[in-house]
């Protein structure tokens, strides 16, 4: 430009340093946090709806266990006592209030409306940007959403305490990994919008399917053995079932380590898969209007 750069017709090679990357994506985390904070009014009602979800399951399981007791059957279902069951449900929903986000929906909208073009002309990776924003959103959710829900749900439904200090700590680590797995899966689903004209059905299926396959709605121990071994091969159980079982003290010692390692493996694997799919999809992208 004015400093004589016009003389050469070459563009200088450039690469963002790891430190600069950290700074940039950190900035995205901060901005997402602030953005959600600006829209916080939307979330006050969420505390009510989550409490209603838990209340529904609470009375359902109380009735179920009472029915079994009346018929003289065992006091546990699928290896869980009624108190553990209530705790399972409550912690599942509390965890979901933290890791949940709308990456697939947002990405699909960007693709179908052509807004994706505005991200492709910038020197960053949209997958990393969306992951950073998901972290910022989770930070907001933790403070404005997850903690208020906990403060309501735990005393009202007599939710059991964690199996110990270590169990609590590992539960937190585990739910953090859930955030990564959930976000990358969601990003992959969003990438389907590159191939499909109408992705609304897929997005709805994802909403319902995820809650079912992660074990939020019904614990896997309720299901036949073949189903349980099938979900073992899928990433969904790593989103909710694994951290909740750690909380309940059902995963300790080697089982706990296995659970966390499995989560790390899925987080890394899905991140790489999402990057490859993104690369393939953007090479074949057709942006609306041309």
């Amino acid at each position, binding site marked *: 430009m004015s400093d004589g750069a016009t003389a050469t017709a070459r563009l200088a090679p450039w690469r963002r340093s790891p430190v600069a990357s950290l700074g940039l994506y950190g*900035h995205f985390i901060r901005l997402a946090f602030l953005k959600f904070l600006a829209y916080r009014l939307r979330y006050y009602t969420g505390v009510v709806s989550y409490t209603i979800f838990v209340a529904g399951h609470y009375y359902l399981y109380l009735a179920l266990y009472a029915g079994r007791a009346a018929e003289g059957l065992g006091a546990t279902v699928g290896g869980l006592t009624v108190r553990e069951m209530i705790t399972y449900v409550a912690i599942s929903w509390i965890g979901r209030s933290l890791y949940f986000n709308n990456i697939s929906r947002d990405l699909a909208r960007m693709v179908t409306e052509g807004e994706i073009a505005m991200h492709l*002309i910038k020197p960053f990776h949209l997958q990393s940007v969306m992951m950073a924003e998901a972290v910022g959103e989770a930070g907001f959710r933790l403070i404005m959403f997850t903690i208020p829900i906990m403060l309501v749900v735990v005393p009202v439904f007599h939710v059991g305490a964690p199996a110990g200090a270590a169990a609590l700590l590992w539960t937190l680590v585990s739910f953090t990994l859930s955030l990564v797995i959930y976000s990358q899966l969601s990003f992959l689903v969003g990438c389907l919008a590159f191939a499909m004209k109408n992705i609304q059905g897929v997005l709805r299926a994802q909403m319902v399917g995820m809650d079912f396959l992660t074990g939020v709605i019904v614990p896997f121990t309720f299901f036949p053995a073949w189903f349980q071994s099938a979900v073992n091969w899928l990433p969904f159980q790593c989103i909710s079932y694994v951290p909740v079982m750690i909380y309940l003290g059902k995963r300790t010692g080697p089982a706990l380590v296995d659970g966390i390692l499995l989560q790390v493996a899925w987080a890394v694997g899905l991140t790489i898969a999402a990057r490859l799919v993104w690369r393939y999809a953007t090479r074949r992208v057709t942006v609306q209007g041309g």
Partner: protein
Amino acid sequence: MEPLIHVRDLCKDYRLTDRREGVRGGLLDLLSPRRRDLRAVDRVSFDIQPGEMVGYIGANGAGKSTTIKMLTGILTPSSGEVTVGGMVPWRQRQQYTRHIGVVFGQRTQLWWDLAVVESFRLLKKIYEVDDATYDRQMKLLDDLLDIGKLLGQPVRKLSLGQRMRCDLAAALLHRPRVLFLDEPTIGLDVVAKENIRGFLRGVQEREGVTVILTTHDLGDIEQLCRRVIIIDQGRVHFDGELSELRRRVGQTVRLSVDLRDPAASADLAAVTVGLPVNWDDETGLRHVARFNRAEVRAADVIRLVVNDRPVQDLHLAEQPIEEVVREIYRQAAANNTDSADDTGTGAAK
């Protein structure tokens, strides 16, 4: 000089699915969709030197936006090559986009929910602009585009003209080497258009940035670009200086005459009889003469008319560029039908 932008035999095909009619057709579509390829960009080639400002024009669907999307790395071509400063846009997307600025008139690159200044701070990080450059650029862009008062407002509250000024500033913050402008004045009023054009002229002169501009508004081209590339149905039909374009089509001049007393066109035609001048009656009082400057001198026409009858006012103008471009399209269409048998290669240049 080595060109900054090098485009050779660039093609882009879109796959379209044609729908059949009715229930039966719908079921057939499910079983065997009827697909066909549409060639949106067809063997386009051009070179652009550093510091050039080039108008890239064509009708809707002519292929200009598709070309721009390939040049900016958004789309991957079906075939052909593009290098900009030695980089292939869609392969080295991240490091390439570091060096370019893009404005799509129909979309904003600012973050919708954020105050404008927050978008600029984010762009500073994205493009790794150092503090000194950032301050200098912000001051400069504020002087030129008067965006200082807008910085505190969320983007969604800006008017179209305000947003466009902010978008231009955003595209130039990191001092790009190449600037791509896709319909930068679309939807703006006359004053806003003038401001933006003045700004672009200034930036181009001062910073020597290379600019490719697509537009429907040929006023943009007339005021900004010396060189134009005209594309129609995916093919380049003209690539050269604006003056050459005028010469190619014929240097038509438009003389409008306001008479004191109403007259018919035939009366005026009688006055200039013997000269190749076409007269059109606009209002009875206003008549427009069109003639080729190479054949007729404007002074002769004016003298003949003024000597014949009382004239209130005269106005002499070059043929508007719209008409010039329309003429190029017409010639191109004629060439296309002429050369339909030889696969149209003759019409590509």
